């Protein structure tokens, strides 16, 4: 086996049952050179301190559970290589979220935002299964595919300067998801979502800092989605005066 390396992990701990404020705890451990940050946390949990709490599951960068702050940056820890860091590594919960315990953050606020953008296909009349699949060209698919790749890891919320200042901001991942459905050729609900986008905490709250797209581990580019949505909203708002809308969608 390969040579093990000595690392110092400084991990933020917080147990609301016992602690008034978060504190840090230091773990000196030996790691394999090809480990990810998550591997080290699991090693600490299994062999050093079973009271450490963090979320994780797939360890292949697709379930989105293990977002944390590593040396000050939001990271998906199962994909974050130890080799990117020096001898001392600080791990803290994601910024901009209330902390439940240790490295576990509160997601309820996000889950509400997520639902708020109506992330489902809205049509005036549902198609019957017997009608078969909808035609959608590869180009039409490409119009939204990138924005459908979000794993809800929350790194973009942790990085976003607007999220930290404006509590009502729907935020990058949820807005990108709403835009994903607006861009889908099978969907007829754009005018409904655009009203939400134009409202308080919608796309015009975004200051285009682009931090969300820079930290996204899946190259979803929420910032790009929001800029597209801003443009779409201006057009949608302008045409709403001259074009009669289709029927109700659900």
């Amino acid at each position: 086996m390969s040579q093990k390396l000595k690392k110092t992990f400084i991990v933020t701990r917080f147990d609301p049952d016992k602690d008034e404020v978060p504190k840090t705890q230091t773990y000196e451990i030996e790691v394999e050179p090809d480990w990810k940050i998550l591997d080290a946390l699991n090693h600490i949990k299994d062999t050093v301190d079973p009271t450490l709490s963090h979320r994780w599951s797939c360890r292949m960068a697709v379930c989105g559970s293990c977002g944390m702050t590593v040396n000050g940056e939001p990271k998906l820890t199962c994909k974050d290589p130890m080799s990117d860091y020096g001898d001392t590594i600080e791990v803290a919960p994601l910024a901009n979220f209330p902390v439940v315990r240790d490295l576990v953050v509160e997601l309820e606020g996000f889950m509400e935002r997520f639902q708020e953008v109506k992330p489902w296909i809205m049509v005036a009349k549902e198609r019957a299964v017997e009608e078969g699949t909808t035609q959608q060209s590869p180009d039409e698919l490409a119009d939204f595919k990138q924005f459908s790749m979000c794993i809800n890891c929350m790194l973009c919320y942790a990085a976003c300067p607007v999220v930290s200042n404006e509590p009502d901001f729907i935020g990058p991942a949820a807005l990108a998801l709403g835009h994903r459905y607006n861009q889908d050729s099978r969907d007829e609900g754009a005018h409904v979502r655009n009203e939400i986008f134009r409202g308080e905490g919608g796309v015009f709250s975004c200051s285009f800092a682009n931090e969300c797209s820079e930290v996204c581990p899946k190259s979803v580019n929420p910032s790009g989605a929001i800029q597209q949505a801003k443009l779409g909203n201006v057009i949608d708002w302008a045409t709403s005066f001259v074009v009669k809308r289709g029927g109700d969608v659900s």
Partner: protein
Amino acid sequence: MVDVSRHDVVIVGGGGAGLRAAIAASELDPELSIALVSKVYPMRSHTVSAEGGAAAIARDDDSLEMHGYDTVKGSDFLGDQDVIQYFVEQAPKELTRLEHWGCPWSRNEDGSVSTRAFGGMSTKRTWFATDKVGFHMLHTLFQTSMKFGNIDRYDEHFVTKLLVDGDVCRGVAALDIRTGEVKAILGKAVILTTGGGGKVWPFTTNGNIKTGDGMSLAYREGVALKDMEFVQYHPTGLPGTGILITEATRGEGGYLLNNEGERFLITRDYGVGTKAELGPRDMISRAITQEIAAGRGVEIPGKLGRYAHLDLRHLGEEKIMARLPFVRELSKAYANVDPVHEPIPIRPVLHYMMGGVDTDIDAKTSIDGLYAAGETACVSLNGANRLGSNSLTECLVFGARAGEHATGYIKGASVGEEGPFVQQAEAEAARVDALRGRQRGGEKVSKVREDMNTAMEEGTGVYREQASMAKAVSEIAAIRQRFEQVSLDDSSKVFNTELIAALELANMLDVAEAVTCAAVLRKESRGAHACSDFETRNDTEYLHHSLVFHSPDGPRSEKKDVTLGIWEPEERKY
């Protein structure tokens, strides 16, 4: 007193099968109150990790008969043929529904849904969304479920017990991971959709949450676990981590090579014939295991064991990026290999459990009001070996079936007297409170789990033999005793993951008991159960399902007939 909430249908598990069940029930009756209880937020469910695709006939050169025959042959004739027939009929409808709900299926130039080749399938019938099909299906289902106002989610709630009185199930006791409180979530029907238990083994594609919870919950209430000896080793897992590299790599034309650069599935006889790399998983995993055993494995610096090579280089960068971008991302991030330029080192890795909670074709178990679907169930679609891309479709077909039949059932059902069920939940609250932070002997959760993993790998690998299986039976029994001496360090009520790990370990030990018990009794080789001391299939004595029942004195086994009638069992050669 525990907190009590009341619903019509309680679904345990928020992956593909659970979400599909919830939507089916909601569509049938918008007045129903549906509880969706999951130990993680639904989008974290392990359905998310499925890569290659979902099977359903879609092309003119295909037929229900062909999909059915491929499936029953893949199952080594242990699949129930009425179940298989129902499955192939429903499959195209289910994938079409998902298309209507927004799943970003990959498309042909003419705008129709594209299909790809998969192992053991005789034509291209695997629908795909590049190579993140489980991810897209799960997110489509979860997002679609949000438009139904009558699905109440209990996210991050860990179900510790089914509430069963006499022979009816009327809800669950669930630990709210956030607060540490146990609640009674009552309903007239309960559907288990908690996935498999791949974490029983050490080298697995499965995520941390795959701990066989639903299997254990049902087993403890007297429901049989069926065909548990059949566990699938996927041929291509990455070194060290076991991360899945999809069969779609071979569907798109990838080769398997030994250390001499030889395509051994072509040059040697492993029973897969001209299918070569597109043979079924059990056979390909055995072939790789034999190549390595014969000294033709590939060495990797710094990694234990030997591997084969999965070579995609001839597909070219454009095709890899169009069809298999996630495979490239995973290979680079977790094996330091770019498949555009280098072959990917792989070896067989525990992937899927064909067995599970015994259900009939309606997803119903032996307890009134209790249903199961998806990997946690054994409806007997997959028999002794599942074909790749049938399981995502299975989650939809039988998730929907469970939702529909549970909805039908509750019309004539009532919770009745709540008392006995609430009392059980209160007893559960006391049990969980006693377990949290308990000090007993010197055993640790992580160590007991590791020893269980080792015993299961040695006893129930790609190849098994009587002696090693018998050893695993006794080892698992001993490890179950050791669990009673586990001490826990974390006494906090808030997000206590050590407590959850202990509860999950208890569940996995139930699964391990059932797997080893069933494995040692099947003295033949069929599908994924390959016995070195009984090398052939024996239809005279073993063309039957195996049932394992929990009892205080140790597991008890029975046989159950296989439903035949459409396809006559024949020698399985490709």
